[in-house]
C-alpha cells in the first residue's frame, strides 16, 4: 500500500496539473485504479476557486483576454503554485509569470505586465499591514519659512509609487468600460501614486508628474527628509528657475495634501 506522502504527491498532480491528469486518466491500465469522477470533481473545485480569485483581482486582464483568461490562469498556477496560506497572495506573482513565461502575450499586449502589476497593487494597498506610527501630525505655520523648511511631510500609511511605460490607468478604465483598445497601444510614460485612504481603507490612484514622482520617491526612501531638503532636491533637478520650481513645489504639496497622499507634517 502506498504511504501517505506518495498518495499526496500523486493526487496533488492529478488535481492540479492538467497534463499528468489527462495522461493518467486516459491510460486504460491506470484508469481502472483511479476514481475519475472524484479526481475531475476536485480538479474542478480547485480550478473554480483559482479562477474566481483571479477574476476578482485581475478584471482588466480578463476583459482583455476574454475566454483565454481561464487557460492563462491555470497555466499560471501550474507554473507558480500558491506558496502562502493566504488565498489572495497566491495571485501576487501573476505579472512576473506574464513577464517570464508568456512571450506571445507580451508581444501582442506589451502593456500586460504593467497592467497586471497595476491590478495587483490595488489589493496589496488595501490589505497591507502597517506598523502604528508615533509621528505626531501637525499643521506647521506656512508663513514661517524656517518652520516650514524644517518640517517633514508625512505620507499616508500605505503608498506605492509606480513608473509605467504605458498609460495603465486609462487602459484599465477602457477595459472595465467595455471599450475596445487600439490595435497598438502607444507607450506613454506614466507616474503613479497608489495609496490607501486612511478613512475607508480603499485604494486611491493619483497620476503624477515626473518631478512629483521623484520628490515622493525621495521622501519614501527617507521619511526624515524635510521640506527644505525636498525643495533643494527639486530645484537641483529641474531646469526651470529656482523661483518657478519653488512655486511649483508648493503647489504640488498643496495638491498632495488635498488628495490626502500627504496626511500632515511633523
Amino acid at each position, binding site marked *: 500500500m502506498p504511504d501517505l506522502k506518495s498518495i499526496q504527491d500523486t493526487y496533488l498532480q492529478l488535481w492540479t496539473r492538467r497534463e499528468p491528469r489527462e495522461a493518467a486518466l486516459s491510460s486504460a491500465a491506470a484508469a481502472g485504479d483511479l476514481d475519475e469522477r472524484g479526481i475531475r470533481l476536485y480538479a474542478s473545485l480547485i480550478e473554480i*476557486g483559482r479562477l474566481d480569485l483571479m477574476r476578482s483581482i485581475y478584471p482588466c486582464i480578463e476583459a482583455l483576454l476574454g475566454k483565454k483568461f481561464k487557460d492563462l490562469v491555470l497555466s499560471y498556477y501550474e507554473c507558480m503554485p*500558491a506558496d502562502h496560506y493566504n488565498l489572495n497572495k497566491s495571485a501576487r506573482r501573476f505579472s512576473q509569470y506574464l513577464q517570464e513565461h508568456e512571450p506571445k502575450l507580451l508581444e501582442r499586449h506589451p502593456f500586460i505586465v504593467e497592467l497586471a502589476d497595476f491590478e495587483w497593487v490595488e489589493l496589496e494597498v488595501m490589505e497591507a499591514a502597517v506598523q502604528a506610527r508615533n509621528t505626531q501630525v501637525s499643521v506647521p505655520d506656512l508663513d514661517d519659512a524656517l518652520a516650514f523648511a524644517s518640517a517633514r511631510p508625512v505620507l499616508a500609511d500605505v503608498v506605492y509609487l509606480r513608473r509605467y511605460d504605458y498609460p495603465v490607468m486609462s487602459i484599465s478604465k477602457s477595459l472595465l468600460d467595455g471599450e475596445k483598445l487600439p490595435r497598438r497601444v502607444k507607450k506613454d510614460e506614466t507616474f503613479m501614486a497608489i495609496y490607501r485612504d486612511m478613512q475607508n481603507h480603499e485604494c486611491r490612484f493619483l497620476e503624477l508628474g515626473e518631478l512629483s514622482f521623484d520628490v515622493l520617491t525621495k521622501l519614501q526612501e527617507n521619511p526624515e527628509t524635510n521640506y527644505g531638503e525636498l525643495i533643494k532636491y527639486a530645484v537641483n533637478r529641474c531646469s526651470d528657475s529656482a523661483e518657478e520650481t519653488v512655486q511649483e513645489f508648493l503647489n504640488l504639496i498643496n495638491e498632495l495634501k488635498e488628495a490626502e497622499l500627504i496626511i500632515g507634517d511633523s
Partner: protein
Amino acid sequence: MSDFLSIKRELPELGIGLGLRRELAEQTLASTASIDWLEIVPENYMGLGGRARARLEAARRDFPIVTHGVNLSIGSTDALSEDYLRDLKELLNYVDAPWWSDHFCFTSHGGTYMHDLLPVPLNMEGARHMAKRARQAQAYVGRPMLLENISYYMQMPGSDLEEADFLSEVLERADIGLLLDVNNVYVNAINHNFDPYRYLDKLPLERTVQIHIAGHSHGPEMIIDTHGAPVIEPVFELLEYVLRRTSVKAIMLERDQNYPDFSEIIAELEQIRSIAGASNPLALRGKSA
C-alpha cells in the same frame, strides 16, 4: 475524563453565531440582537491590515470571536508551518478566542497550497499522523483546538476505516474537540450512501464543542457543500438529533455565497435557536435566554 472534556466544561457558551463575511459584514455587525458571536476565517486576517483589520476591530468590539481555519493542513505530510501557527496564535490572542478550529483534511503539500479541503486516506496511519500533529498544534497555540468533519467527494486510496471511526481515532488520540458539521454529514451520507444517524452514533459526540449548519447545492452526480443555499429540513433534523445527545457551546450558520436578503439569514438563525432551545434548553443560553 480526558483533559479536553474537562476543558470543554469550562468553555463559554457562545450561543448562535454567523460567519463574518466581507459581503455581509455591515449587516452582520449591526445585528447584535440576533447574532451571539462570530466566526472568522483566520487566513483572511492574519498578517493583514487595512480594511480586513478594520472589520475585525469592529467585530471584536461587539462579539465574541472564534476562528475557523482552512490552511493548518493537519493531514499533510509537510511539516506544520511555523509561520502559519505563529500568525494564527497572534490573531487568536488579539481576538481572545475561547477555542479555534480547522478541518480533518490536508490543504497543502510539498509547500504548495491548494486552498481547498482535500481528503486523506481513512486508515490508522493517517489517523496517527493527524493526531500527532493536532497535539503539536494545540500545544503550540495554547488554546483548545477543534477539527471539523469535511465533505469529501472521493475515497482516497488506502482507506480501510469508516469516516466516523477515523475521526474518533484522531479525536481520542489527540485529545481535542470536534466541530461537527451536520450539513457535511448529510452531504457525505447522500454521496457515499451511508446512514447519517449511525455515523453520528459512532462519533464521540461528547467532544463536540461547536456545530456548523449550512445549505448545499446539487451537482450533476453529487451534492456539493457550497454554503450557498438555505438549510434543508433533513439537516435541521440532524442538528436536533445531535443536540438531544450532547451539549455544545456554539452553533454557527455558514453562508458563503449566493447571498439572500439578510432577513432570511436572521430567520434561519432564529430557527436554529428554536431547535437548540427545544432540544436541550440548558445547552445554549444565547441572547434569547
